C-alpha cells in the first residue's frame, strides 16, 4: 500500500508539473503574447499605409492629393503565361513575345514589368488575378491643377517626403500616422487660404505683365491685410510639381524655391510708406508739414538725389509720397533720428522672418547702429528711408505695409486656414505680431496714399474702388555698386482704401519696356485688380458706403 501511495504521489507530481507548464504557457500565449501579436498584425498583413493628407484651396477645390497607382510584378513560380497573354497583355500594352521571352528565361524569377500602372488598369490586373502577375498598389501624389500655385504647394518626392511649400512645412501633419494599435491613420487634410480662381488670375496676369514689359521674372502677392491670409501668391518661373524629378535631375532646384519668401531685394520707394508711417506716428511731421525739396541732399558724405534729379520746392507729405521724393524721405529719417527710425522698422518686423508657414523663408537685412556699428552710417539711414541699403522679401513688404491697411496692427501672414484630422478641425488663428503705429496714423496715411494714387498714378485706379498705393523703382545691388540700368519695378496697393480687404504687391524684375514701376507694375496691377476684386467678392466703395 505504501508502495502504491508513493508511486501515485510521484505520478501526481508529474501530472501537476505538466499542468503547471501548460498553465504557464497559457498565460504566456493568452496574456503576454496576445498583446504583442495584436501589435504585430499590420506587419503580418502587409496592409498599405493610409494616404497622405489632401490639400484644398479655401473653397474646397483639391490642389494636391494622393491617387492609387500600381506596380505590375512578375513571379515565375507557377506563372500562368497563357492566360496573361490572352486576358491582360493587350490592355496593358505588353506584347506576347515579351511574355514568351520572359518565360524562356528561367534565370529571371522576379521582375517589375510596369512601374506605374494607372488605377483602372491596376484594378483590372487585381480582379483578373492571373497567377504570377500581381498588381501592387502604392500612393502617388497628384496635382489636379497642374502647375497652379506650385511654389505654394511644393511637392512630394518618391520617398513620400514633402519638400518645399506647404508640402514641406506641413510634412509631419500630412504624413499618415501610426496609431497605438499599429494601423495607420490617413494624414490630416489642409485647407489653404489660397483662392484657386484668384491664384489662376494672378498667375495669368503675371505672365501677361512679363510679356508686356520684358521683365525676366516677377512676383505677385495678394493677401487679406486684416487677418494675414494669403489669397494668391505667384512667381515666375514656375514649375509643374508632377515633374519635379526632371527639374531636380537638370540641377535646377532653384526653381523650387518660392521667391516671394526666399528672395531678398532692395524694396526701393515702396519703403517710403513705412518711413512716412514712422514720421507721422512719432510726431516728427503731420500730413500738412511742408519741407523745401531740393534736387539733392548730402548725408554722411553721400549725395542723395531725387529720382528725376529735380527740386520740387515746398512740398507737403502727401506730395512727398505722390512724387516719391528721396530727398524728402531722407529728410524725414534724419529728423526722426536713427534710434526712432529703427525702433519703428523693428516694430514693422523688418530684418526678421514673418513666420509664414512656408519653408526657406529669408529674414531680410536691416543694418542698424546698435547691431552693426561698423557698417552703419548716417548715409545708410538716409538710404534706408527710401528703401535702399536694406533687404526684404516681397512678403515682408506685404506684411509690414499691410499693417498700415489694418489700422496699424501687424498680423502674421499664413497659408493654412484649417487642419482637418477626421472629425477634428483646427482653425488658424489670426496672430497679431504688434501695433507699430496707431490707428489714427494708419488712417491718415491710407488717405494720403489714396490721394497720391489719384494724383500721380491714376492708371492704377479700378472703377468703383478707392486705392491706396505706392510705386517703387529699385536699383539692383551687385558687388561694388548697382546693376545699372536694370531695376526692380514694384507697386503695392490696398483696396478699398478706407476699408481695406485686400493688399497686392506686383514686382517685376528687370523690365525692358520701361525701368519705372509706374509704367510697368502699375498697369499690371490695374488689370489684375479689375479681374480680381469681383472674384474675391470685394464690394466697391459705393456699395460699402450704402451698406453702412
Amino acid at each position, binding site marked *: *500500500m505504501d*508502495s*502504491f501511495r508513493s*508511486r*501515485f504521489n510521484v*505520478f*501526481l507530481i508529474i501530472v501537476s508539473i505538466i*499542468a503547471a507548464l*501548460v*498553465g504557464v504557457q*497559457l498565460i504566456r*500565449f*493568452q496574456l503576454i503574447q496576445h498583446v504583442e*501579436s495584436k501589435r504585430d*498584425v*499590420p506587419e*503580418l*498583413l502587409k*496592409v*498599405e499605409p493610409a*494616404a497622405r493628407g489632401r490639400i484644398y484651396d*479655401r473653397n474646397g*477645390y*483639391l490642389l494636391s*492629393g*494622393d*491617387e*492609387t497607382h500600381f506596380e505590375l510584378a512578375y513571379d515565375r513560380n507557377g506563372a500562368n503565361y497563357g492566360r496573361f497573354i490572352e486576358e491582360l497583355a493587350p490592355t496593358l500594352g505588353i506584347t506576347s513575345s515579351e511574355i514568351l521571352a520572359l518565360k524562356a528565361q528561367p534565370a529571371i524569377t522576379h521582375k517589375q514589368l510596369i512601374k506605374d500602372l494607372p*488605377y483602372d488598369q491596376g484594378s483590372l490586373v487585381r480582379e483578373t488575378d492571373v497567377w504570377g502577375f500581381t498588381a501592387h498598389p502604392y500612393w502617388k501624389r*497628384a496635382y*489636379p*491643377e*497642374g502647375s*497652379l500655385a506650385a511654389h505654394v504647394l511644393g511637392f512630394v518626392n518618391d520617398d513620400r517626403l514633402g519638400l518645399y511649400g506647404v508640402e514641406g512645412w506641413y510634412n509631419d501633419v500630412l504624413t499618415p500616422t501610426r496609431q497605438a494599435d499599429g*494601423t495607420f491613420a*490617413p494624414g490630416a487634410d489642409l485647407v489653404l487660404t489660397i483662392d*484657386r*480662381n484668384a491664384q*489662376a488670375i494672378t498667375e495669368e496676369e503675371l505672365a501677361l505683365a512679363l510679356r508686356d514689359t520684358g521683365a525676366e521674372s516677377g512676383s505677385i502677392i495678394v493677401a*487679406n491685410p*486684416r487677418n494675414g*491670409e494669403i489669397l494668391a501668391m505667384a512667381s515666375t518661373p514656375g514649375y509643374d510639381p508632377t515633374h519635379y524629378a526632371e527639374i531636380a535631375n537638370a540641377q535646377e532646384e532653384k526653381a523650387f524655391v518660392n521667391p516671394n519668401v526666399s528672395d531678398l531685394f532692395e524694396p526701393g520707394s515702396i519703403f517710403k510708406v513705412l518711413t512716412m508711417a514712422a514720421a507721422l506716428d512719432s510726431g516728427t511731421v503731420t500730413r500738412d508739414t511742408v519741407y523745401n525739396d531740393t534736387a539733392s541732399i548730402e548725408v554722411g558724405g553721400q549725395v542723395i538725389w531725387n529720382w528725376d534729379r529735380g527740386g520740387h520746392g515746398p512740398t507737403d507729405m502727401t506730395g512727398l509720397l505722390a512724387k516719391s521724393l528721396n530727398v524728402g524721405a531722407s529728410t524725414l529719417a534724419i529728423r526722426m533720428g536713427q534710434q526712432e527710425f529703427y525702433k519703428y522698422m523693428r516694430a514693422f518686423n523688418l530684418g526678421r522672418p514673418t513666420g509664414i508657414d512656408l519653408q526657406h523663408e529669408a529674414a531680410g537685412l536691416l543694418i542698424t547702429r546698435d547691431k552693426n556699428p561698423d557698417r552703419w552710417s548716417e548715409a545708410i539711414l538716409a538710404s534706408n528711408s527710401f528703401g535702399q541699403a536694406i533687404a526684404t522679401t516681397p512678403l515682408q513688404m506685404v506684411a509690414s505695409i499691410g499693417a498700415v491697411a489694418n*489700422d496699424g496692427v501687424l498680423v502674421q501672414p499664413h497659408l493654412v486656414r484649417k487642419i482637418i484630422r477626421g472629425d477634428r478641425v483646427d482653425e488658424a488663428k*489670426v496672430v497679431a505680431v504688434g501695433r507699430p503705429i496707431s490707428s489714427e496714423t494708419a488712417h491718415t496715411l491710407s488717405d494720403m496714399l489714396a490721394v497720391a494714387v489719384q494724383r500721380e498714378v491714376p492708371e492704377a485706379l479700378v*472703377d*468703383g474702388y478707392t486705392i491706396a498705393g505706392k510705386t517703387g523703382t529699385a536699383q539692383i545691388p551687385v558687388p561694388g555698386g548697382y546693376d545699372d540700368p536694370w531695376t526692380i519695378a514694384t507697386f503695392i496697393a490696398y483696396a478699398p482704401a478706407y*476699408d481695406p*480687404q*485686400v493688399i497686392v504687391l506686383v514686382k517685376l524684375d528687370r523690365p525692358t519696356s520701361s525701368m519705372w514701376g509706374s509704367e510697368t507694375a502699375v498697369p499690371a496691377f490695374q488689370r489684375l485688380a*479689375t479681374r480680381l476684386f*469681383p472674384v*474675391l*467678392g*470685394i*464690394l*466697391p466703395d*459705393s*456699395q460699402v458706403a*450704402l*451698406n453702412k
Partner: protein
Amino acid sequence: MPANSNNKNANQRLTAWLNQGLKRQNWSTRRVAQMGLLIALGVVVAALYLLQSSQIVTSTRQVQLLREELAELQQANADLAMNISLMSTRAQLQQRANELGFATTGNLLFVGVPHMPQDDSPSIANIYSPER
C-alpha cells in the same frame, strides 16, 4: 548481456511498476474522484485553449480581410476623388463653359443698391475677415 534483452527487461520493469501502482482495486473512491477531477480539469483547460486559439486565428483572418477591403476602398475612394477633382479643374470648367456658350466678362458696371442684403457668396468682408 545483449543490449536488446536489457531494454526488454527495463520495459517490463516499468510496466510492472505502473500496473502495480495503478491497480484499480487498490484505489479508494476518493482517489478515483480526485483523478477524474484532475482529468476533467485538464480537458477543460485544453478545450479553452483550443477555443481561444481558434478564435484568435479566425478573428485575425477577419481583420486581415477587412483591412484589405478597407485599403481597396480607400484606393478606390482616392481614385474617385481625383477623378472628380480633374473634372472640376479650372481648365475643365473653362472648356465646359465655352461649350455652353459663356463668354469672358467685359467691363463690370457696379450699381449701388441701398440696404442690399448680405448674400452667401464667398466674400472676404463678410465671411473670412475676423471680427473687428
